[in-house]
């Protein structure tokens, strides 16, 4: 090996090793997703998701909590703020219900969530009960789950839950 190449490689190796150690290298200082324990979503109070304009409350209950490797599914329930509770009676919000995922730090969302009204055995819609599926977070971190009440594509009211994936 020529002297020039040897000296060059030695200097580069030293510089690179120093940079690796000094500069917050993700490779040297990180956690693995499998070792991260996430707190389950804890809804607070009698009205976890409040829609004051429509005088409604809603709750979000995970059937399967999403992780960075699993899709999630959840149930949404709506009731009147002044007469109902998280256990019912449930009411139709009289708007289309959409769920939007948003990552505030990155300034973007995720792939679309499917939200469908739950139906009974005869196929009739059950008031106030919705299933959210294909809940997928494109990356781990702090996310917002926005529940939107829409008509003809216009958002009439929305409220959010904070979750960490």
């Amino acid at each position, binding site marked *: 090996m020529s002297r*020039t190449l040897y000296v060059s490689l030695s200097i580069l190796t030293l510089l690179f090793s120093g940079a690796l150690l000094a500069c917050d290298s*993700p490779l040297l200082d990180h956690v*693995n*997703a*499998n070792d*991260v324990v996430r707190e389950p979503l804890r809804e607070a109070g009698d009205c976890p998701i409040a829609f004051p304009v429509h005088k409604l409350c809603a709750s979000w209950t995970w059937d399967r909590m999403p992780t960075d490797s699993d899709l999630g599914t959840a149930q949404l329930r709506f009731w009147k703020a002044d007469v109902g509770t998280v256990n019912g009676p449930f009411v139709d919000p009289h708007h289309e219900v959409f769920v939007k995922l948003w990552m505030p730090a990155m300034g*973007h*969302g995720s792939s679309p969530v499917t939200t469908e009204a739950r139906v009974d055995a005869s196929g009739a819609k059950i008031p106030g009960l919705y299933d959210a599926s294909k809940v997928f977070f494109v990356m781990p971190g702090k996310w917002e789950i926005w529940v939107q009440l829409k008509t003809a594509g216009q958002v009439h009211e929305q409220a959010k839950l904070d979750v960490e994936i």
Partner: protein
Amino acid sequence: MGPPALFRILVPSLAVGALLAFAGNARAAACCGGTSATPSLITGDDAYQFGLAVSRSEIIGDAPTSGKPVFRGDGTDEVTTTYRLDVAAILSDRTQASVTVPFVSKSVAAGGTSNGASGVGDASLGFAYEAWPEWTYSEWKPHGFLFTQLNLPFAHSIYDTEAAGASDAFGTGFYRLSAGTLLRKAWRVLDAAVTPEVHYSLPRAFTDAGGSSLRVSPGFGASVEAGVGYNFVRLPFRVGLRIQPVWNEPRTIDADGARTRSSAQWVWNTGLDVGYLATTEWSLSASYTDQTLLGPAVNTTLGRTFALSLQRRWPR
């Protein structure tokens, strides 16, 4: 100047030119979808340059706004394969233009479910001016170009993704204009290059799958790439190392009557390049780019990319 001395200058220059033209584009992209902000440049005495490249990029982890990066588990797999075509041509003695068109195939696997999508990615148009030509050899004066590039958002982005797992989000979603300079110098077997650039992404309105509209203003960003290389005298090979910090300012999002701001992004690209100069007209390159080696990494995905490139040049 005799043939041996000319060879010591010419071969490294050709190798540097051939490899810089490709290596500058072989970067792992930060979330979500991305392209290089520097165009394909003719840095040698060539009239036309045609390049074909294939790269495979895998997301290894994610760096939050604060706290330690999280490396993804075994159950998650996000891989993007890109086939890229670069064409560059001189317009006059010191000006040139280029076009880059990628074809992207992306797959996202999570929890036993796999989703994939393919299509044309964001194309780009470039223009460069040889501001500091190398007409005579100088021990210190660099060979330099001023360049500008326009990114054309042909592909879906994370803001208008329609596919499960956002597997069709392999574009930036924005018209982005970048401007910078390439300065390079070769001394016998060693070479060095530095490429600072600034870019600005134009605001754009999107309609997501739920019918909601939002307007995103990404704003400014910048990067500086610095590289060194060693050119083997008896063999037509070059080995190079490069580092590139990349910064993007917070994005402004207007949606549903509210305005929010994201956080800024920082990521460091480190790369290793090996080039083979088959002839003065043909070259083959292999490169590896890693975003997990250097930091700090803030508010970004972290990926690793392997790439192979074949380049054909036509002399003037």
